[in-house]
């Protein structure tokens, strides 16, 4: 199949020559391995007082610092967390609060979570780190069968509300099969759990403190590509952002875009592109909490716009977009102007070298918007 680029080059020789010379000037091994996105920092909330410049991992450290300082029962544990963790999220905490409150565990995910459930069931605040979301599956049984059901099965005599499991999540540009996955949907069918994913430092701090203090077991996924890339002026004081509340980032009239984590930034750029290239006004929603999710905000938005696009990195089939789409078609059936668009990872394992092809990048999202508005 002849591509448009190919045709252009044949027709306009000078352009073709120019392109060729341009290509020659590029390094030979230049390969775009990661899907490009632009981080959109959040304006500091003036009502929260003094701020400091922090990237995502620093804001998480800050949140955990506050958690340890304000709750004497809080402990942090996981693989390598005592010396800061592989992504540096717990740097300095062991020195500040002691080895009995911030400590390393052996490499045993099932044991780590089970241990945390035990602690939390006594009433302590257990903050466990699973080194990569890809490694959470050995602990899946403990999370799904023990943590999520403890309250229900004991008729509320016991609960593990003090448990929070943090884990780096999502694509990072070169993670390949086992350092890139986004398993949020796997936990979305476990009533009793809360699943939360932040998109930037300010939000991350408030949401993590909410998770730690929430009286339900929480899974908190951290977009690892943002650890260093995302920098904002973060309020230094103790604050929380409510769970299960989506945030409307941009208001618009023609289509609602829903995402979480890194994908919010992709969709942000898409919204700008859609306005510029297609004259389409997008309403952008960051879902923030995957379970239980904020149905109301999305429903309200789709009733206004009549169109919905949901994008996530996890594979299309059985991804959380499917759940949202299904709810929205039920709640907003007569408001919908076109089929709900899902732009997601393909139904393949996360690829080693085809990451940009796999990811729901801005071009795929833009194309879906075009399709939706032209339906």
């Amino acid at each position, binding site marked *: 199949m002849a591509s448009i680029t190919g045709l252009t080059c044949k027709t306009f020789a000078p352009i073709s020559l120019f392109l060729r010379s341009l290509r020659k000037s590029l390094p030979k091994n230049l390969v775009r391995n990661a899907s490009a996105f632009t981080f959109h920092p959040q304006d500091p909330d003036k009502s929260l007082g003094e701020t400091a410049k922090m990237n995502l991992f620093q804001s998480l450290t800050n949140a955990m610092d506050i958690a340890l300082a304000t709750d004497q029962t809080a402990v942090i544990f996981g693989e390598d967390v005592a010396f800061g963790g592989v992504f540096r999220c717990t740097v300095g905490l062991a020195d500040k609060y002691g080895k009995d409150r911030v400590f390393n565990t052996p490499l045993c995910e099932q044991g780590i979570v089970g241990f945390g459930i035990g602690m939390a069931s006594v009433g302590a605040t257990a903050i466990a780190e699973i080194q990569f979301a890809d490694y959470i599956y050995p602990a899946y049984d403990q999370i799904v069968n023990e943590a999520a059901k403890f309250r229900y099965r004991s008729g509320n005599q016991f609960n593990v509300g003090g448990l929070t499991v943090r884990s780096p999540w999502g694509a990072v540009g070169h993670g390949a099969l086992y*350092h890139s996955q986004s398993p949020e949907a796997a936990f979305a069918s476990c009533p009793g759990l809360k699943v939360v994913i932040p998109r930037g430092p300010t939000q991350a701090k408030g949401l993590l403190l909410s998770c730690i203090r929430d009286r339900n077991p929480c899974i908190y996924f951290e977009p690892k590509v943002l650890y260093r890339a995302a920098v904002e002026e973060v309020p230094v004081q103790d604050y929380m952002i409510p769970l299960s509340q989506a945030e409307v980032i941009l208001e618009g009239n023609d289509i609602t875009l829903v995402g979480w984590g890194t994908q919010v930034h992709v969709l942000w750029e898409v919204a700008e592109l859609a306005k510029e290239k297609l004259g389409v006004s997008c309403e952008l929603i960051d879902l923030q909490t995957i379970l239980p999710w904020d149905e109301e905000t999305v429903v309200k938005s789709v009733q206004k716009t009549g169109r919905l696009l949901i994008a996530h990195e996890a594979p299309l089939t059985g991804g959380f977009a499917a759940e949202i789409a299904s709810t929205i078609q039920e709640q907003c059936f007569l408001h919908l102007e076109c089929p709900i668009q899902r732009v997601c990872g393909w139904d393949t394992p996360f690829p080693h070298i085809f990451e940009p092809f796999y990811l729901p990048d801005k071009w795929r999202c833009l194309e879906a918007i075009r399709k939706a508005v032209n339906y």
Partner: protein
Amino acid sequence: MFSGIVSRVSSLSSSSSKKAVVCTLLRSYSSTVNEASLSVTPYKLHKLDEGPNTETTLTRDDALKYYREMQVIRRMETAAGTLYKSKEIRGFCHLYSGQEACCVGIQNALTLDDAIITAYRAHGWAYMRGISVHGILAELTGRKTGCAKGKGGSMHMYAKNFYGGNGIVGAQVPLGAGIALAHQYRNDNTVCVTLYGDGAANQGQIFEAFNMSKLWDLPCIYVCENNKYGMGTAVERAAASTDYYTRGDYIPGIWIDGMDVIAVREATKFSKEYCLSGKGPLVLEVETYRYHGHSMSDPGTSYRTREEVQEVRQQRDPISSFRSRIVEANLVTEAELKDVDKDVRKEVDDAVGKAKSDPRPAITETYTHVYHNTPGYSVRGCDAFSVHASS
């Protein structure tokens, strides 16, 4: 440590390799011997009355072979490190440098009909199971010519009876028990060597596998490659017992100096015979050391000192200690080893060149091999205009 080498002067060297014969004619290595007897670092035994031989013989051909194999792995890993730093390699990359005597010693007591399954530090193993340096490096750089078609990357390499390369810590161990059962069922006199690290030794599924394999007396040799650090955590900070060879409890075990390739070979020979005699599994602890960090993103110096790494390199390096041993035993000459080094350098350099320039897999490979005979379907490309059909 490597004392007790006694050269036994037999006939003059006559290597089976044509190249070595030529060398002999040209340079007249009249001083080398065909065979030497030597003793290995003593073993520690758990629930075994008798252990592997501590006195054995080493032939000149084997000495050259093991030396070459270890050198190839060392050089290949250095090249992989460089390729990673120049961003030719994506994904995660765990280097085997320092541990060469483990895979070389074990494989040289096995045949390619025996099965191997290991974790993510798989490059050395892939080489020992017959994958070329080019096949390995091209896999790392994600090329079509890689041993997994560029689809696996660092942690995922496979060959006949080599079940890979696994990314999840400890996940391969129960698989090893299953592989061993299948071999037992076939009655083909083979074993499965199931490898894991000291970090993985604390995963629960290891103990599930131990129980099953002893319950059914499976021909499975569990090998804990103890390189002293589970990522950034020293063994004694992660394990209640660091005597990994005893941690099969009711399964007998052997501690082996993993820097001594001959000790590893002898112990593996013993273990294979033991398993095939119907006595069931064994747990070996091969004590070794990794020179690089856990992966490329770990400089490997925040949880141990540079001096510690340097000391192992100088005093216990599996290659240089083996080198001085075989030279001392007159099995080979320094000049011959220099030729080997030169040859190895060329082999690795050539492979690096190809791994950088080979074609990448077609984009359609993204969605092949998801299922058996993945049904054909089309996927739109990265731009709005191209469509890719699966073949």
